């Protein structure tokens, strides 16, 4: 004979999730970091030396042979993308009223984020200024 089932505790505690708290904190910290990263980036690229005229494929390739700039740009890419995505996620939560709208908007958002992050990361590590064999850049004239 089956033993009578003991009911589960009447108010099962929801697994505690700090997701919203962490995302809120992430926005604050990434925001501060991004101010430094982005302003630094703008200064180095647009103002120092010849400024904006120095920028070409070679300049970018030169920067990305240096692990320091690779890390800098990688951090900037990930932080900015996640910061922006999280902000949009919040806006969708606030303003999309129907569950299905919300679902599709968010799916689109996350998909685009994955795309940008994968592509961006790939480019930072595999950038080749001489990919085009007909390139006329100095670095490619060996």
């Amino acid at each position, binding site marked *: 004979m089956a033993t009578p089932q003991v009911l589960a505790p009447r108010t099962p505690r929801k697994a505690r*999730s*700090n*997701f*919203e*708290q962490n*995302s*809120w*904190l992430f926005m604050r910290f990434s925001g501060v970091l991004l101010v430094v990263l982005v302003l630094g980036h703008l200064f180095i690229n647009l103002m120092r030396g010849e400024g904006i005229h120095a920028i070409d494929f070679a300049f970018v390739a030169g920067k990305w042979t240096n692990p320091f700039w690779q890390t800098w740009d990688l951090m900037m890419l990930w932080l900015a993308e996640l910061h922006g995505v999280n902000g949009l996620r919040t806006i969708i939560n*606030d303003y999309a*009223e129907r569950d299905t709208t919300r679902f599709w908007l968010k799916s689109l958002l996350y998909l685009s984020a994955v795309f940008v992050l994968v592509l961006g990361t790939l480019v930072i590590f595999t950038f080749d200024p001489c990919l085009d064999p007909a390139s006329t850049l100095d670095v490619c004239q060996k």
Partner: protein
Amino acid sequence: MDVTLKIRRYNPEVSEDVRWEEHTVSMQPTDKVLDALHKVKWEIDGSLTFRRSCAHGVCGSDAMRINGRNRLACKTLVKDVNPDQPVSIEPIKGLPVLKDLVVDMEPFFDAYRSMLPFLVTTGNEPTRERLQSQQDRDRFDDTTKCILCAACTTSCPVYWTDGQYFGPQAIVGAHRFIFDSRDEGTDQRLEILNDKEGVWRCRTTFNCTEACPRGIEVTKAIQEVKRALIFRR
């Protein structure tokens, strides 16, 4: 002086349509907007419906949108609402309108109730009172002043679009107990407010602080709860 009230009327028993009605009444500059509404109701159109009880800013029943801002009609003087122009009067936003200026407050009270707005303790009751130092009492003094008028919650843009959000008032109500040294329900309340629809939905818009007729620093209270969540344990 003559004041024109532009009142948003809605009576689902007659028609689903909303209409704006203008009435001009003669008032003293130092009369309250509530007096003007009374004059309309008592002398011009008895069907005008609104809530009020104390008429002195104590009961919190007559929050409404006056010239686009949430205020208590009984605490707003006619001379302060630019009476040269028609003064617009609407129900507070974000809660279902039942009739004219009367809204269904249940969703608002539900949010408040889910904050356990009562003293939670364990162990034996003390024979006399639960003592508290003046300092400990001052810690949550600001949020004890709330009269549940809903002016803050219905001024919040997040609440307008997402009725799931507990809203500023519920957080004020929770704050009053979270920072009370005699209370032991802090963890439960913080857990409720850590939820998806809790304090993290606040965007520090400051509409609530501006709306509160009691001058409660609502946004600050919300931030203090956030801080308590981050630094707890």
